């Protein structure tokens, strides 16, 4: 019992060490810019372009439900025209980046972990190394950079679609006054809200790629190991996004209030 507990602690510390090593190597490689442009472009396509359907549907329905729910509450206190303002701020600050992050974590995180995990199991990673190629430069860095690029773009898309959808629901379905709604939304949603959303998305994009690459590169040998790495990549990325989001909200909110 004690032995196994001790072993688990040792193992998780060793895991943390490996993760830090990976992050450090990736950062070093990122700043020295040993990036293969073709790979980066392909990853942006895979992470960004291919995730659009999922992200757009999520954004649209989140915007709509948010509009409806806020309206039902605000209607009781005769604040109907503030509905879209709430929707705008929530989408920009929180829901846009977080939900986009979660959807991409599920779709892309799992795919990255499965791909790198299979490469590890079939010794392709070792083969890369014998061909004088650093796996971090060749596999991890393009994915992280692509995550950083793609996620803010996806988030913008999701916010726009969300706001559009909430406008349609608010104005045409629930009958809120269009002009006042619009004016209030513009009055209460500031540039800084959009900035916060984009910064968050930038962070989550890198995190998803880093965690998923780590899970893939360190997966246990065998088909089961790959399956497990895939699941864990999605779960860990999602949880990390939710936790990071809390702290980012605190820190960025503080900074925004000082501006």
């Amino acid at each position, binding site marked *: 019992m004690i032995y196994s507990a001790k072993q688990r602690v040792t193992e998780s510390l060793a895991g943390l060490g490996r993760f830090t090593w990976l992050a450090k190597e990736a950062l070093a490689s990122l700043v020295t810019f040993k990036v293969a442009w073709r790979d980066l472009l392909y990853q942006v396509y895979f992470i960004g372009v291919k995730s659009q359907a999922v992200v757009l549907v999520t954004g649209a329905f989140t915007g709509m439900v948010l509009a409806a729910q806020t309206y039902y509450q605000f209607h009781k206190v005769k604040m109907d025209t503030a509905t879209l303002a709430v929707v705008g701020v929530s989408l920009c600050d929180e829901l846009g980046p977080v939900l986009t992050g979660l959807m991409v974590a599920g779709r892309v995180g799992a795919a990255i972990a499965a791909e790198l995990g299979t*490469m590890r199991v079939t010794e392709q990673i*070792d083969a*890369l*190394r*014998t061909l*004088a*190629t*650093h796996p*971090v430069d060749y596999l991890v860095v393009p994915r992280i950079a692509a995550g950083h690029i793609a996620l803010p773009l996806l988030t913008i898309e999701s916010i726009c679609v969300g706001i559009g959808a909430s406008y349609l629901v608010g104005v045409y379905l629930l009958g809120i006054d269009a002009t006042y709604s619009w004016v209030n939304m513009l009055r209460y949603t500031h540039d800084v809200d959009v900035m916060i959303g984009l910064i968050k998305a930038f962070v989550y994009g890198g995190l998803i790629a880093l965690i998923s690459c780590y899970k893939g590169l360190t997966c246990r040998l065998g088909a089961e190991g790959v399956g497990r790495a895939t699941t864990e990549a999605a779960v860990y990325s999602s949880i990390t996004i939710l936790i990071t989001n809390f702290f980012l909200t605190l820190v960025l909110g503080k900074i925004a209030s000082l501006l």
Partner: protein
Amino acid sequence: MIEARNLKKGFGTQPVLDGVSFRIENGESVAIIGRSGCGKSVLLKHLIGLLQPDAGEVLIDSENIVPMNERQLLRVRRKFGMVFQGSALFDSMTVAENVAFGLRRHEHLTETEIARRVAETLEMVDLPGTETKNPAELSGGMRKRVGLARAIVYEPQIVLYDEPTTGLDPIMSDSIDQLMLRVRDRLKVTTVVVTHDMRTARRVGQRVLMMHDKKIYASGAPDDFFASRDPVVRQFIDGVADPKETPF
């Protein structure tokens, strides 16, 4: 020159190498033989820094590679080509891209030059015209030969072959043996070949090392080796299993 000094390696509680030492000169070709699971692949991976020993040194041209980090190792690995036991082809790339990978990494060549070198090397391993195929469409033996082409195309100084002829038909094995010899003689390549195939060991190895019981058990010129009277060596060469009690 490759030199291993007192290498030790274990996985968990299971020791695999326990004091392996040898020295391979430039341009020499050495065959490493031993029972399945005795640690030949593990030993080979130590020579190129894919695995870190628990103790001991690996010297490549008098430079100890054990304390090097992954980035420093990249420089040393430019000297190497390695053929993996399980081929380890990049399955997201075509055959041509696989073979060209090392070329693109090592040298600055034009696309036509790369295509020419790739075609030439595929011809050498008897797979002409397979450039656009995917690894998944190839048979095991064909994949093995693509792996071989990928390892020799950029003309490294040292080539490590992990069971290059296992799973090939006798005629193909023979032509791979000859290919290894041609590569060795034409480019003065240091050759280390791990094999179960006694014919390959005899023909390609100027020297044979036999692993047994986590160490280098015996070493010698092929002719002396195959005439050895040592019971362990004899048993391996003749391929006789220990008689076991069977319950039925």
